[in-house]
C-alpha cells in the first residue's frame, strides 16, 4: 500500500491550482455563471493547454493519464475553485465512453477533445429513468444500413455546446434490461435532434434532447449492438470518481472559507471562532472531511477492480459524500450566517455545487440501496 501522489500528479495539481487562482476568481466565475453560454471558451482552452484534458486519457488514447487518481487530482482542483466548465461531461463521461468502446475512426474525436477544439455530451438519462442506468426507452431502429434514433434524453449536460452526442438507445431487451442497450455517436447538427436548453442552479447549462427519427449510419454505432451497458457503467464509475473529487475540493473550500470567517468575524466583541459551540462544529466538519477524502481515495483506487468490488466502493463513496456534503454545505452556511446567503459571496456557489452533486449519478439513498444489493451479491 502507498498513499503518496506521484510527482507528475502533484505537479499537475499545483499548476492547475495556480492557474485557477489567477484566472478564476469569484467575480469572473459569477460572470460566467450568468453568461448565455454558461461557460468560458477562454478557460476551456486554457485548461486544454495546461494538459488537464489529456490527463484524463491514457497514452493509448493520446493522453498521459486516465487513471482513477489522475481524474481525482484534476477534479479536486476544479471543485476547489467551483469550476463550471463541462470537463466531467465532455471528457470523463462522453469522452470516457468513446475511449472505452470506440474504434480508431471514432476515437479520432478524442484527439480534438484533448486539444480543446471539440465538445461532447453524454445523452443517456431519460425523463423517467431518474438514476437507473438501465432504464433506456429511446429506440434505435436499423433499416438497410441506416439507424433511426427516437426518444427523449433528460437534463443532458453541455447539450447546447456539444459538437457530438454519445447517445444510448435500445436495440433489444425490455425497458430496464441491461442487455440490448447500444451507444451511438451522433452529430449535434443532425436533422430531428432538437434541444430545449436551460441553466442549472449550480452553474453550467443542460437541455432536454429530443431525438425524432434522427438518422445515423451504422458506423455511428459504438461497439457491438446491445452490449454497451458495461461500458456505460464503467464510464459512470469514472464520472462518479470525478464528481466525488470535485465535491471534495468544493468541501475543502467551504471549510477554508468558514475557518477564515470564524477567526475574522467579530460578534459580542470577539471573533466568533472563540465560541466553543462553533469550534466543535468546525472540528466535526474537519473530521468528516477526512472521512470524505478517504472515501474518494477508495473509489479512485478501485476504479480498475472487478465490477462488484469497484461498484461497491463507488456506491459507498457516493452515498457517504451525499451525507457529508450536505452536512458541510449546511454547516458552512449556518456558521457564516446571512453573508453566505448572498449570491456574490463565494460560498453560495460552492455550497450549491456540493449539495446538487447529490442529484447526479444517484443520490445517497440510491447508492445506499445499491451498496446493500452489491454487498449480498
Amino acid at each position, binding site marked *: 500500500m502507498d498513499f503518496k501522489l506521484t510527482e507528475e500528479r502533484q505537479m499537475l495539481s499545483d499548476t492547475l491550482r495556480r492557474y485557477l487562482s489567477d484566472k478564476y476568481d469569484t467575480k469572473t466565475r459569477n460572470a460566467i455563471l*450568468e453568461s*448565455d453560454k454558461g461557460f468560458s471558451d477562454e478557460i476551456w482552452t486554457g485548461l486544454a493547454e495546461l494538459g488537464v484534458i489529456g490527463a484524463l486519457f491514457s497514452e493509448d488514447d493520446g493522453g498521459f493519464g486516465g487513471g482513477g487518481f489522475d481524474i481525482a487530482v484534476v477534479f479536486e482542483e476544479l471543485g476547489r475553485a467551483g469550476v463550471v466548465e463541462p470537463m466531467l461531461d465532455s471528457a470523463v463521461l462522453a469522452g470516457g465512453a468513446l475511449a472505452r468502446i470506440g474504434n480508431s475512426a471514432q476515437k479520432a474525436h478524442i484527439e480534438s477533445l484533448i486539444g480543446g477544439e471539440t465538445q461532447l455530451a453524454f445523452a443517456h*438519462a431519460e*425523463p*423517467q*429513468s*431518474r*438514476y*437507473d442506468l438501465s*432504464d433506456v426507452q429511446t429506440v434505435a431502429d436499423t433499416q438497410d444500413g441506416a439507424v433511426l434514433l427516437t426518444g427523449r434524453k*433528460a*437534463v443532458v449536460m453541455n447539450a447546447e455546446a456539444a459538437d457530438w452526442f454519445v447517445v444510448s438507445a435500445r436495440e433489444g431487451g425490455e425497458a*430496464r434490461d441491461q442487455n440490448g442497450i447500444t451507444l451511438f455517436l451522433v452529430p449535434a447538427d443532425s436533422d430531428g435532434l432538437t434541444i*430545449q*436548453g*436551460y*441553466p*442549472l*442552479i*449550480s452553474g453550467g447549462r*443542460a437541455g*432536454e434532447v429530443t431525438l425524432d427519427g434522427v438518422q445515423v449510419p451504422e458506423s455511428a454505432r459504438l461497439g457491438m449492438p446491445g452490449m454497451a451497458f458495461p461500458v456505460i457503467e464503467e464510464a459512470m464509475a469514472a464520472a462518479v470518481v470525478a464528481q466525488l473529487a470535485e465535491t471534495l475540493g468544493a468541501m475543502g473550500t467551504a471549510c477554508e472559507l468558514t475557518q477564515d470567517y470564524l477567526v475574522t468575524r*467579530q*460578534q*459580542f*466583541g470577539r471573533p466568533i471562532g472563540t465560541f466553543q*459551540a*462553533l469550534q466543535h462544529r468546525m472540528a466535526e466538519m474537519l473530521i468528516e472531511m477526512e472521512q470524505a477524502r478517504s472515501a474518494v481515495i477508495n473509489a479512485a483506487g478501485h476504479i480498475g477492480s472487478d465490477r462488484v468490488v469497484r461498484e461497491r466502493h463507488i456506491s459507498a463513496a457516493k452515498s457517504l459524500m451525499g451525507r457529508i456534503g*450536505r452536512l458541510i454545505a*449546511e454547516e458552512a*452556511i*449556518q456558521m457564516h*450566517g*446571512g453573508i*453566505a*446567503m*448572498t*449570491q*456574490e459571496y463565494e460560498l*453560495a*456557489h460552492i*455550497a*450549491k455545487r456540493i*449539495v*446538487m452533486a*447529490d*442529484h*447526479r449519478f444517484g*443520490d445517497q*439513498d*440510491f447508492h*445506499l*440501496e445499491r451498496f446493500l444489493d452489491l454487498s449480498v451479491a
Partner: protein
Amino acid sequence: MDLSYTPEEEAFRVEVKEFLAAELKPDVADKVRLGRGLSKADTEAWHAKLNARGWLAANWPAKFGGAEWGAAQRQIYEEEACAAYAPRTVPFGLSMLAPVLQKFGSKEQQDHWLPRILNGADWWCQGYSEPGAGSDLASLKCKAERDGDHYVVNGQKTWTTLGQHANMIFCLVRTDSDVKQQEGISFLLIDMDTPGVEVRPIILLDGTHEVNEVWFTDVRVPVENLVGEENKGWTYAKYLLTHERTNIAGVGFSKAALDSVKRVARVANDNGRPLISNPHFAGRIARVEMDLMAMETSALRIIAAAGAGEAPGLEASMLKVKGSEIRQEINDLSRRAVGPYAMPFASEAMEGSNQPIPDPFDVGDTAGDYFNNRKLSIFGGSNEVQKNIIAKVTLGGRR
C-alpha cells in the same frame, strides 16, 4: 387533557375553508404553491380580503380591533390557509410593529399607525440588523442625533425583507454612544420617502430579491416618530423578537410542504417502483412526519399556555429551532424527490429567466426553496442565539 376539536372549532374550520374557496384566486395560489414571488399588489389584495373579514388582526387584542384567536383557531387557520396555498401575511406591521405600538406607543401613535397597518396605507419593513450587528444586535451603530424637533439619522441597515415594497421602516438606532450598548438604543419610525433614504437590493443565493440594504444619509425624522422613551428601544426590541417567534413553528407550512413531497413521491419513478416505495426515502418522510406530529402538539400546548396576546418565552425559542429544522428537512426531501429535475433553474436575477424550465412534477423550484430556506435557522435570532437563550434560562436558575 383533550386533543379533539370542539364543535365550535370545527365550525370555525368550515368558515375558513369557505372563505378561502371564495376569496383565494387560483393564479395567486399557484404562485404561492410554486414558490414564485408574489407581486406587491397580490399581497395587498390578500391583506384587504382578510381585513374585510376581520381576520387580518387575528392576534391583536380586541380593544385594537383584533380577533384574539386562541391556539386552536390560529392553528386551524394556518393549516387551512397553507393547505390552500394562500399568501402569508406580511408580518412586519401586523405582528412585529403592532404589538410594540400597542404596548409602548402613545395614544396618538396607536390611533394613527394601527389602522393604516390594517387598511394597507402603510407597508412596513424592519430596520434591525446591520453589517456588523447580526447575532450581536445590540452592537448596532446606525446613529440618530437630536436636532430641534427632528432626529438626524445616519448609518446602514441590512437584510431588510421586502424593503423594496415598503414606504415605512421601524428602526433601532443609537441615540447614546457613551452608555452600555443596550442602554443607548431607541426605536424610531421612518418614512422611506424622506430624502437620504436609499434601498439597495441584495440578491440571495437562489437568485431572488427579497432582502435589501437600507442606507440613511442625514435623514430627518420628526421626534413624534420616536416610540416610547429615548434609549429604551432595546426593551421594545426584545419584546418584538419574542412576538416575532410566536408563529415561527410554521406547522401549516410544513404540513403543506410534506403533502407535496408525498404527492411527488407517489408518481416519481425510482428503479421501476414509485419513489414512496423506496424504504429509505419513505423512512425520511416518516421520521419528519413523526417530528411534525409532535411539534404540532407542542405548538398548541405552548400557545394555549401563553394565552391570547401573550408571547411565550423559553418555549418560543424551542419552537423556533425545531420548527426551522423540520421545515429545512422537508425542503431537503422535496428537492431530493424530484431527482435530476431539481437542477434546472432560472433565477429572477439571471438573463433569460423567462425561458421555459422543465418541471415534470409541477412543484416549482425545489432546490431554490431549499437554499433560500437555509435562512430559517439564521434570521429572527439564529438557532445558535436561541440555544444560548435556552441554556441561559435553564442553567442560569441553578447557579
